[in-house]
C-alpha cells in the first residue's frame, strides 16, 4: 500500500510539473478540468431563439463540429479584405471568406489557409442560376511537427433539393440544398450548402480537417 501511495504521488507530481510556475500549474489544472467537463457535457446543445439574438448588435454565427468543439456561437472581431475573423466566448476562432472557413483555431483542425477562386459563389454572393458546377481549391494545414501540408482537391457541385431550414428556434425558411463532392487520389469528402434565391448561404457543412472533422456553420444574424 505504501508503494502504491508513493507511485500515486509521483504520478500526480508528474502531471502538474509540466510547467514550472505555480500560475501555469493552476492553468493546466483548469484546462484538464475543462476537458473533462467538455466530454461529460457533449450532448447539451443549446437552441438559440430570435429573442436571444435580437439585442446583439453584431452578426452572429454558430459553429458545431463532430470533434471536440460541439457548439460555439461566434462574434466577428475583425474584417479585412473580405476575410472576417470570428471568436467564440471559449476562445476558439475561425476566419471566413464568404461562407468558406479558411482558418481555424482551437477546433482540432489546424487549418491555416484555403485558396480558391475569388469569384466563387461560395465566397461572393451569386444568383443560384450562375453557380459553376466545378472548382478546385487548396487547403493548407499545420502538421503536428509544425510543417505546412497542402491538400489539393477538385470539387463538383450539384443541386440536391429545396429544403426548409431552421437557423433560429421557430424561424424556418426555404433554401436550395447543394452537395459538393471534393476529392483527390487519397481524400474524399462532401460539403453541403443551403442558399436562398439570391445565393446567400445561410448554412453549410464544411470539411476542415484530414481527420474528417466537419464544421456545421449557421448564420444566426447578419
Amino acid at each position, binding site marked *: 500500500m505504501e508503494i502504491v501511495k508513493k507511485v500515486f504521488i509521483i504520478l500526480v507530481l508528474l502531471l502538474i510539473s509540466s510547467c514550472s510556475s505555480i500560475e*501555469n500549474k493552476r492553468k493546466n489544472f483548469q484546462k484538464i478540468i475543462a476537458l473533462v467537463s467538455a466530454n461529460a457535457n457533449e450532448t447539451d446543445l443549446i437552441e438559440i431563439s430570435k429573442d436571444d439574438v435580437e439585442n446583439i448588435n453584431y452578426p452572429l454565427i454558430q459553429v458545431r463540429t463532430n470533434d471536440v468543439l460541439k457548439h460555439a456561437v461566434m462574434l466577428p472581431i475583425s474584417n479585412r479584405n473580405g476575410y472576417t475573423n470570428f471568436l467564440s466566448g471559449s476562445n476558439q476562432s475561425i476566419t471566413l471568406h464568404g461562407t468558406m472557413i479558411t482558418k481555424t483555431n482551437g477546433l482540432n483542425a489546424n487549418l*491555416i489557409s484555403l485558396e480558391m477562386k475569388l469569384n466563387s459563389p461560395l465566397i461572393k454572393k451569386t444568383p443560384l442560376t450562375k453557380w459553376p458546377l466545378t472548382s478546385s481549391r487548396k487547403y*493548407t494545414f499545420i502538421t503536428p511537427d509544425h510543417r505546412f501540408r497542402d491538400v489539393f482537391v477538385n470539387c463538383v457541385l450539384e443541386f440536391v433539393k429545396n429544403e426548409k431550414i431552421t437557423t433560429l428556434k421557430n424561424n424556418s425558411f426555404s433554401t436550395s440544398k447543394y452537395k459538393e463532392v471534393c476529392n483527390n487520389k487519397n481524400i474524399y469528402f462532401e460539403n453541403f450548402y443551403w442558399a436562398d434565391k439570391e445565393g446567400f448561404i445561410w448554412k453549410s457543412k464544411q470539411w476542415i480537417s484530414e481527420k474528417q472533422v466537419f464544421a456545421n456553420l449557421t448564420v444566426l444574424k447578419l
Partner: protein
Amino acid sequence: MPGILDIPTAGSFNDGEFSFSSSRFKANLRNTLSFQALPRVFGAFRYSGIGDSKSYYYHSGYTTWDRSFDLRVDILKEKSLIPAMTVGFQDIIGTGNFSAEYLVASKSIFNKLRATAGLGWGRLATQNQIVKNKERPSDGGSFGGLLRYNQLFRGNVGVFGGMEYMTPLDGLKAKVEYSSDNYQADQNFFSDTSNNSFSQNNKLNYGLDYTLNENLNVSSYYIHGNKLGLQVNISLNPNSTSAGDYLEPAPQPFYSLPYSEKLDMKIIWEKIITILKKEENINTIGYALEENEAILLIENNYYVSDAQAIGRSLRILSRYIPSNILNFTIVLNKLEIPISFISVNRNELSEIIDAPNAELLTKKISHIGSSPRQYQNITLQKNNINNKIDFTASPYYQIHLFDPDQPLYYDLGLKLTAASLLKPGLIVRGTVKEPILTTFGDISRGPKGSLPKVRTNIKNYLNETNSRIEELTVSSYFKLSDNIFGRLQTGYFEPMYAGLSSEILYFDSQKPLAFGAEINYVKPREYEQLLGFRTVTGMPKVNGHFSTYWDTGYYNYHAQLDYGKYLAGDKGSTVTVTRKFGNGWDFGGFFTLTDASFADFGEGSFDKGFFFKLPFNAFVPYETKYTLNERIRPILGDGGSKVNIKGRIYEMFSPQRKSNIEKSWARLWR
C-alpha cells in the same frame, strides 16, 4: 521492425516513426528500440535475453544478455508492378549472435495479401541453404561492439519467405513464414538438459497480428512447431502525434489600426507587457521606440514554437502601438541575452495576415537575423525574471540499464530545483534529489578496462540513495560580438564531476555552421554527492574540445564533430548526428573513437550510444515545454567520456536561431 514473425520484410515504417517492441517465446526475450531515420533508412537497437528465464526482467536468470544494432536501407519503393526491396544488416554492431545480412522483396497483391521472399546470409542462412559450404569470417574483435564489415554478405546463402493476409476483421492480420534461421546460435546458451532449448519441429511459423490503434499493436505466434510467443509494439511518430489544440486560446486579432491613439507611451508599453505576460505567457525583457520602429525584447518560456511567440507578440503590438510607428521588431532573448530578431512593416502585415498563405507571405516581407550584442536606448523591464528565485518541485526517474544481473535498475523520487537569473546571462542553479523508490543500492557491477576509472566506477555514485546534490552551478553567458558567444561556469556540474568550464562559440544565425572550443578543469566528486571531492588515479584535471556544428538542412539533421582530450586523458573525436523535429522531438546517435585501444576500453571496444527527447506537448492539448530526455549507452566505458555540462552554448541558444525559428514558421499566426 518491418517483418513477418522472425523474418524481415521489405519496406519501411512511416518516416520518423519511433517504436519499442518486446517479444517473448520460451526462454527468448527481445526488446527493440527502433527509429525510421529517413524515408529509406531504418535503425534499431536490440537487447535480448536468451536462456532459462524464470521471470520477466527481474532476477533475470538468462544465460546471456545481448546488445546489438541493426540497419536497413530501402533500395526500391513499391510501385504497381515493382516490389519493395530492402537490404538489411542485422547485429551489424554487437557480439554477432544475431549477425545476418539479407536482401528481401515484398509485394502487395489485391490490397489483402502481401508476399515476401528473400536471401539471407549469416544467421539467416543456417537452414534452407541454396549456397552451401562457404566460409563466413569470424566477427571483429574479442571485446564486441565493432562494425562487422568483414562478414558482410559472406558465407552460405539461405532463402526465406512468407505471406501476410489482411483478414475481414479490421486490424487483424494472419501471417505465415518459412524461416531460414535454425536458432543454433541461441541453442549454444542452453545446457543439454535444459527444457527450454530451441529444437525445431517445423520451419513454418504462424501468427496473428492485431493493430489496436496507430500506436499499439499486439501479435501472437506459433514458432518452430512447438512454441507460443507474444509481441507488443508501441510506436510514436513526431510527424503525426498530436493531442490537439482545443485547449489553447485563439490569438488576438492583428489590428490594422490601434485601439487608441491618445494614450501615453508609458501606459501603452505597460499594457503590452501586462497582456503579453498574463494572456500570452510571454516575458518582456525590454522595449524601445525609435523614430519609426517599435522594438520589443521578449523571452519565450511557454510556446514550443518561437515563431508562435513572435506572432502573438506582433498581434499585441498592433493593438497598442500608434499607427505612425510603421515597423515592428521582435527580439528573441534567452537568459535576457538577445539572440535573433524579426522586423516587419505593420501595414504590409495587415494586408496579408488574413489572406491564404499568410505565413509564407509574412516570411517574404520579414527580415530575420542575428541580434546585435546590445540594443541601445532600451528600457529594461525590471522585476521580470531578474533576482527572482524560481523553485520547481517535480518527480524524477532515473534508470540504469543492461546489467546482466538485473537489466533494469530504477530510481524514482522527488527533485527540487532552484534557479535565479541574477543579471542578463548570469544564472545560479541547483538541484537536489530525494529518492523514494529505488533499486540503485543493489547495483554491484564495478569498474572495467584499464583506463583511469572516470566513468565505470559509477556504481559507487548510483549506490548512494540518500539525498544528494545533482547540480549546483553559477553560469555566465555573454556575447563578445553579434555572433560570438561565451560561457564561464563553475560548481558541481553533474553527480560525478565539479570544476570550472569555459567555452566560446562563433555562431552566425544566418549560417549553417558554428565553431566552438571548450576547456574544463574538473575534480571528481565524492560518492555521497554532497560538497566533497575525491581523486581518480591517472585522471588529468584538464580536458576540452574543439567543436563544429552543422545544421545540414537535410530532414532536420544536425551534425556535430568534437575533437579533443577526454576525461580519462585519451584524445580523439566524437561524432553526433541528431534529427531535430520542429515540434521539439529529437532522435540521435553518437560514437567516440580515441587513441585508447579497444582492449583498454574493455567490453564494447569504444563509446557509442543513442538518445531521444520526447516533448510532453505532443500528448497534452495545451502548451508545455516539458520534455522527457534519455541517453542510452549499450556499454559504459572510461574512454571517450566527457564531463556532462548542462547548458553548453549551442544547446542553450540554437533554438532561437533563424533556422530553428523557420522550422516552425507554420505556427507564426497560431
